[in-house]
């Protein structure tokens, strides 16, 4: 058994080591890595390691690339191997110019795998497609939000991925989910998505001022209000900073609003200055202290 493991280990490292020893070209290294990844007789661990070691040149040979796509599509292959193949292909896709000839098959295969029975694979693939603002993926995710029986992903994940395209028609469904969320995570993601909807400012103002609301929700509300209607955020920022019981992250967002939008009259606000001073030296993170120092350097006397 031990000898077997040793041998497997040796093979796992093979693509990289052989490349460096013999000065093999990236294409040759890729070919070896793909051959191991695609070999169903080899142990999944070995195949996964080979896929992880595959260089970006995986797209340089049509045969290698097709073999890698076949692994990704292969419902009989272990999911770990398929995920490793997906990662190798994704890494190659970052090299936009070199990937040009592979892009068509890549997008088509991702669309095929988007409805795979494995939830992790589905999620990863839909994430990649949504980063491309793919209409197919967008349509599937929206269908799932409107009809949970068709959902390929949980609503919170679908909302998060749809957020990659600000021009997707998601605000209405996000508002519905924020009103009647299936779970807290979905509510959070719906609110994050609405953070780009200019008409949602009153909702965020209400959430920010509700001290019984969850801290994370109030922080999302503070950031969204600051982005959508900074003057409204500025209006509430002073009260939040003076409230000793309020959370540091919400205070930090309030401080940013005041630092950006305030005027010189802030310098005369002794209570505010004292509160910010306390915040800058108190038990908070270095990042928040820096935010306070920025404010003080602008308005402090």
């Amino acid at each position, binding site marked *: 058994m031990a000898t077997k493991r040793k041998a497997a280990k040796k093979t796992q490292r093979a693509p990289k080591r052989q490349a460096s020893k013999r000065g093999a070209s990236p294409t040759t290294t890729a070919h070896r890595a793909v051959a191991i990844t695609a070999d169903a007789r080899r142990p999944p661990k070995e195949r996964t390691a080979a896929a992880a070691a595959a260089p970006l040149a995986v797209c340089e040979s049509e045969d290698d690339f097709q073999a890698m796509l076949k692994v990704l599509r292969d419902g009989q292959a272990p999911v770990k191997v398929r995920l490793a193949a997906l990662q190798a292909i994704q890494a190659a896709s970052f090299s936009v110019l070199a990937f*040009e000839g592979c892009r068509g098959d890549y*997008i088509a295969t991702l669309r095929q795998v988007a409805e795979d029975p494995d939830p992790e694979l589905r999620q990863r693939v839909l994430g990649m497609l949504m980063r491309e603002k793919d209409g197919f993926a967008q349509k599937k995710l929206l269908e799932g939000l409107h009809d949970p029986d068709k959902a390929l992903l949980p609503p919170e994940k679908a909302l998060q991925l749809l957020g990659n395209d600000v021009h*997707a*028609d998601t605000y209405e469904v996000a508002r519905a989910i924020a009103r009647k969320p299936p779970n807290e995570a979905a509510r959070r993601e719906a609110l994050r998505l609405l953070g780009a909807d*200019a008409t949602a400012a009153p909702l965020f103002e209400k959430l920010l001022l509700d001290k019984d609301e969850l801290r994370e929700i109030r922080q999302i509300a503070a950031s969204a209000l600051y982005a959508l209607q900074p003057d409204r955020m500025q209006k509430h920022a002073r009260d939040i900073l003076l409230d000793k019981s309020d959370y540091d992250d919400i205070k930090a967002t309030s401080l940013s609003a005041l630092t950006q939008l305030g005027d010189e009259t802030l310098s005369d606000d002794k209570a505010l200055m004292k509160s910010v001073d306390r915040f800058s030296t108190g038990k908070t993170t270095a990042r928040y202290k820096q935010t306070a120092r920025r404010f003080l350097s602008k308005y402090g006397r």
Partner: protein
Amino acid sequence: MTELQFAALVDGIAADAQRRDGLLDLLREEHAVYRDRSATAIARMRGWVLLALERGGVSDAALAFVLEELDTGTDPYLVAAAARALRSYPRPGATLVPFVLGALANIRYRDEPLSFAAYGHYAVSATGTSAVRELLATLAWLGRHAKGAVPQLEALHEPGGLPPKLRGDVRRALQAIRDAGQGAEEAGAVSCCGAQAPPPKCCGSAAGIDSVLLEDHAGDRIGFEAFFGGQPSIVAFFYTRCDNPLKCSLTIAKLARVQQGLAAERVADRIRTAAITYDPAFDLAPRLRAYGQDRGVRMDAGHRLFRAVSGNDAVRDHFGLGVNYVGSLVNRHRIELHILDAQARIAASFERLRWDEREVVAKAVEVLRIGGR
């Protein structure tokens, strides 16, 4: 109306020669049918209209819509549909070639497999067509008119050009161009840029524009008439969340060059410039300022970036803007720049296709001179 109902409507109009002009109406960005649709839904819908145009043959009036997509389109489905539609235009000419080559350069790194089999279909196999393939087929269709494109096509056929699997399409295009022979190269060609969309339903005199209140990049407020009255001006439209680099970002960068052109003509203090956002609720003064600064725009009392704090609908009506929205966010818009005379009336418009900075400066100077007589 559902998307499938829309597709059926388009098919119905396309099948009836008497009603076919109605397809152009459906290509207007401001059409109610596009309200509250995602940008990808609009791509499906407009693509279907372009494919319907192909069935009946693209008219001169429709050509601007087709060329617009080739000029600034970044959605492979729309670009491919435009390329197909162009092949039904009855008068191919050399003036169309730069649009096809430009589209090829714009789309090649974002190309994807496409299906035209039915409305809303997405390809799950790369064996069919794609935007690049449709554009190459269009160059082949242009035949002798595309003779000038041969060097570019030859370069695309070399290593470092298009991927090997597309080289067959390149070869076919080259062959078609060469086989078409010399002939009368320009026979039947029209000037592409003279092709204009039918005039907008409104513009230039809508009531209510006097009540529009604008806020500029510095947060200062001014009435529409107060800024645009008294001397000619150039006004472009944009929004900061636009994700098409060939539209808003380029428009504002080019507006900066127009400003330089006005300065070179020594009329920068006699012709105002403005850019008004389509997205006034989101594009607050700091965003406008940063967007202008990043693109080298001169911003002062006579040259401003604006959002309408009240009367945005009146602005849309006044200029007949080609824009639509999903919620409060723009989902589709055309390129539009207008030159206003000293009475804030529209004296000239540059729409859909990318405009030339020198042409805009020259036209604005002409408007200034006419007004000074």
